[in-house]
């Protein structure tokens, strides 16, 4: 196997080096805005009970922003952890295993978050 074949920036977990780089930056820019919005909202909900929290999540704007926030967050986490793994895990099999579990965990977290937001949104309307 030549050097190019070992380079995980080409094919495999990162798809391609360029799209990985752009994905990390675009989600970063999105997250700057969404994190500030979420932190400010979260602080005003400090100590709030379930009714108030659900009321907040169920509003159309909040549920939309939250859904985008969760997707961007876990995509950014996936891309970031992939870089860390590539830097420290050099054994091919272990590298691939770590990449697969990162990807699976991030997808699972996004799906669970989306389902939770959807349930709260629908119950808020019904």
């Amino acid at each position, binding site marked *: 196997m030549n050097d190019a074949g070992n380079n995980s920036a080409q094919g495999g977990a990162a798809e391609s080096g360029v799209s990985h780089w752009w994905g990390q930056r675009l989600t970063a820019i999105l997250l700057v805005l969404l994190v500030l919005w979420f932190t400010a909202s979260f602080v005003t909900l400090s100590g709030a009970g379930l009714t108030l929290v659900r009321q907040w999540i169920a509003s159309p704007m909040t549920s939309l922003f939250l859904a985008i926030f969760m997707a961007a967050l876990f995509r950014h986490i996936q891309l970031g952890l992939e870089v860390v793994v590539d830097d420290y895990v050099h054994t091919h099999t272990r590298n691939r295993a770590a990449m697969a579990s990162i990807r699976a*965990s991030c997808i699972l977290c996004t799906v669970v978050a989306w389902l939770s937001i959807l349930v709260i949104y629908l119950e808020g309307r019904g």
Partner: protein
Amino acid sequence: MATSNRPLSPHLQVYRPQITSVLSILHRITGVALAVGAPLLVWWLAAAAVGPEAFATVRTFWGSWFGQLLLLGWTFALFYHLCNGIRHLAWDLGYGFNLGTATITGWLVVAGAGSLTLVTWFFAYSVTGAIP
């Protein structure tokens, strides 16, 4: 595999720590810490969707001294990663590479993350007192 005998990075312990290098590794450390914390945010959302008992468990956990300590750490990690991330985005655009500038923006990031953390917790506690 060709990968097993690769040369390693120079030994870190022979270098004097500098603000730029310390902040660089801190960006990675806070990033990993935030990645560990993010699923707990999903836990909060899922508990709110499931019902009162699940949500009460989450509230008890975050309200405990250990939960509050974790939240404090994550607040700082979040604001640090956010501020330093903006510094990184500026570098990506080609700005701020000058050594003097990088040192100044580095300290600005530390100051910004510290103040944002304090302001957030000040407001969180004043709001908590206000909600019955």
